[in-house]
């Protein structure tokens, strides 16, 4: 089982970001962590399941910027987690940090509390682009941060970048990739920019936005996507999911569990969990969360996933990974043949050269990745 812990705190909100996160004063942070600890202390009741014997294989601190809060909070949280759940010795424990907000002391505490994977938000190695994105750091800050992480002895480091930025040239992308590969992290997430509603970017680049024409066209975006993959593979990174690359042995176990539908607990504001085929989601209202973290009122959504949906999710979430969907596992789990259930869809999508299938594996072709949503929708609610 996985455990996701949400820390919705930022020093500054980035222009493209639509995550549930914001800038809060220290009082709120303290209240929030107190509430979070209460939630972690009452998970059994929340999910109506005895979790004491369940082994936690991955823990993920996401946000916001978990690295921006006082490291002692992280320590408290980890202690409470261990008090209430069985965290495996070999568990992958990740935390998201940003350049400019962590010092060596924080990293020391992370390490001391078992955190063994650091995910750094770089987004771009070009300072102009960092400014455009509304980041608070420069590339130089990133290098310092990265070196500090390495010096502290973290040997599993991931870096996030965003590609296809407004008006981005191939040279600029190359500069980011070049600088990044020279740092040699174990894992890279490279996301094509999504213009999300409600963000400052949406006003500029969204429907009717004043700078919409600055956005790259689909062809350019795809060219960058392929280029990124080609270049990273030259440096030994393998793409294992639509936007994720890793050196052998360094795939994100936590994120893979989402795509494999391994159960996970979500703790914190707006966090989601999947337990016993029910999807839970906490409230995204900070006040409400703080007031009700130890009772069931913090849960906003509780969606039962029926068998049909479980099968559909297994396929379209699995297809995000380059390993694809294991046909044998599917029939073991559901007692239904994947090939028979989706015969019509599979035939059509194979004709369109969007998927391939053999005795073992169903997966997207390279063209299929381009049209992922279309393929996923074919497998959804058949």
């Amino acid at each position, binding site marked *: 089982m996985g455990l996701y812990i949400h820390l919705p705190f930022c020093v500054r909100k980035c222009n493209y970001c639509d995550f549930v996160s914001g800038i809060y004063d220290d009082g709120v942070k303290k209240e929030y962590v107190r509430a979070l600890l209460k939630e972690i202390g009452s998970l059994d009741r929340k999910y109506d399941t005895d979790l004491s014997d369940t082994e936690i294989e991955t823990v993920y601190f996401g946000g916001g910027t978990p690295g921006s809060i006082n490291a002692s909070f992280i320590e408290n949280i980890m202690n409470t987690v261990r008090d209430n759940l069985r965290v495996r010795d070999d568990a992958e424990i990740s935390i998201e940090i940003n350049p400019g907000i962590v010092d060596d002391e924080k990293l020391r505490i992370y390490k001391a509390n078992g955190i063994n994977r650091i995910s750094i938000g770089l987004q771009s190695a070009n300072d102009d682009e960092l400014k455009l994105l509304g980041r608070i750091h420069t590339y130089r800050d990133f290098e310092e941060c990265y070196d500090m992480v390495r010096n502290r002895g973290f040997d599993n480091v991931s870096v996030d970048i965003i590609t296809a930025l407004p008006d981005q040239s191939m040279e600029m992308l190359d500069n980011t990739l070049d600088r990044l590969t020279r740092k040699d992290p174990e894992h890279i997430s490279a996301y094509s920019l999504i213009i999300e509603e409600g963000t400052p970017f949406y006003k500029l680049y969204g429907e009717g936005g004043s700078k919409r024409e600055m956005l790259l066209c689909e062809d350019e*975006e795809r060219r960058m996507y392929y280029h990124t993959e080609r270049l990273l593979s030259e440096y030994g990174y393998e793409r294992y999911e639509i936007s994720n690359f890793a050196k052998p042995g360094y795939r994100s176990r936590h994120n893979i569990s989402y795509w494999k539908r391994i159960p996970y607990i979500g703790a914190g504001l707006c966090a989601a969990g999947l337990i016993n085929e029910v999807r839970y989601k906490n409230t995204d209202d900070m006040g409400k969360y703080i007031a009700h973290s130890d009772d069931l009122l913090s849960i906003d959504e509780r969606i039962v996933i029926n068998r049909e949906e479980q099968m559909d999710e297994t396929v379209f979430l699995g297809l995000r990974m380059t390993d694809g969907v294991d046909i044998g596992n599917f029939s073991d789990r559901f007692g239904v043949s994947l090939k028979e259930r989706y015969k019509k869809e599979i035939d059509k999508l194979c004709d369109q050269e969007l998927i391939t299938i053999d005795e073992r594996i169903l997966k997207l072709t390279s063209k299929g990745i381009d049209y992922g949503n279309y393929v996923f929708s074919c497998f*959804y609610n058949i």
Partner: protein
Amino acid sequence: MKNNGQDRIRNFCIIAHIDHGKSTLADRIIESTGLLTSREMQAQVLDNMDLERERGITIKSQAVRTIYKAKDGNEYIFNLIDTPGHVDFNYEVSRSLAACDGAILVVDAAQGIEAQTLANVYLALDHDLDVFPVINKIDLPSAEPDRVEAEIEDVIGIEAHDAPRISAKLGTGIDEVLEQIVSKIPAPSGDINAPLKALIFDSVYDSYKGAIVFIRVMDGSIKKGTPVKMIATDASFEVVEVGYFGAGVFIPCEELSAGMVGYFTASIKNVSDTRVGDTVTDSENPCDHALPGYKKVLSMVYCGMYPADGAKYPDLRDALEKLKLNDASLNYEPETSIALGFGFRCGFLGLLHLEVVQERLEREYNLDLVTTAPGVIYKVYKTNGEVIELTNPSNLPDPSEIDYMEEPVVKAEIMVTKDYVGPIMELCQERRGRYVSMEYIEASRALINYELPLNEIIYDFFDALKSRSRGYASFDYELKGYERASLVKLDILVNHEEVDALSFIVHADTAYERGRKMCEKLKEEIPRHLFEIPVQAAVGGKIIARETIKAMRKDVLAKCYGGDITRKKKLLEKQKEGKKRMRQIGSVEIPQKAFMSVLKLDDDK
């Protein structure tokens, strides 16, 4: 009622341009004569279809009887016959007028006389009705009752110096209107002892009683047991019930005699036996001739109607059957389209009638419809001497078999303030109009007469007229006849396949322009596919316009983690739902709304 002699009956209607307050005045009259208390009154009693109330127009004729105690101490029976207020329903209007002895002309105190005001007044005068004017909406800040009074006298030529100045909305001046109904509308005349002669001015279908036939008795009388015959349809029945109209209810009575307005039932199962305008007489003692003015109603506009979900075809058939029971002017017959499957080719009086039927099907029968471009009836003269009345463009014979074609032409009257005369004439020219005349009915307003091909005005002419005159133009038309024209069939090809439901007939000179606009519109409406799609317009197999829908290069979410899954699923669901509303033509999926959006090709762009 003791006092039911003819001299105490007033049969009248209210005529007005749309929105001048006809229905509101009708409500006030009903309210003030005590048939209903204002508490019982739902606004606009006469327009009792939801649709009528929403659109503020009267679609079917309605009638209501009220009792008014006049200042002379006598009680009068008022039969108020509400007439349809749209040019599509001109024939129904004329029959309703024929059932009246007089009319109240309502003119808006701010807007003055409009095209429909004139058209309706002429229609009323043609039927020898006595017309008295009422100036409404005097409560508006922009009201100019003096100017409007003068306008009525100058333009229409009827006395207006004592026209009641009212606000139907606020209820001011209604008493004066009621008194003038008594003094200015003549009592009916008719021979009670002559053979029965009654005019059918509407009918509705009731599942228990059969057709309920609305009549104005001209001569003689009708009661339970009278053996009746409809002269035009030659159908005979025995009367089961007669009565008059309460507000929304039928009130049975003993007998209806000369001068009275009411209804009868006779277990009539088929409303087509009760045609508006037909004459009812006593089959054993018939009158010597029918009332003048009867016409078989002809559909002017045709379109294909298809269920969005092919499995709903039987539901659509049943719904049309039911609507037809109450609407003799609706015609339909089954047809098949390669693109849209099984459906019906339906005939309507005009575009408004079409829209009303479409909305009723969707609302009252819960059907999701795809409609093809409305067209008119063309006459195709073939080289072998045969003449075809073409209602579906797909049935157009091969050009080599066609000698020539004719299209319907209307006489249009457009009233517009002088600033917009130019743009309106330009619009008429663009629509292949033939200028007939123009006269200034007062210093600032002109009445323009044009002859226009019907197919140029059925879809968006009215909208274009409004937009080019900033709402100041009003418009009315009547069918003039058929004229020879150079017409071609415009075909649309999507990914090289002809989409039959998108074909339509156009004038050869405008084929290119329309073809180009169709392609542009379809380019907007058809979503991008994984491959490039050419959209082409063709005449006689020759491509005249083309647009290309570029291939989609990418459709993938960069991120999907634990917290996103529910949201992402909703997105996929939407994508999937969208697909269900598509029609597959070859390998291309065309949204159903594309079939209809091409009807509105904005000309001002």
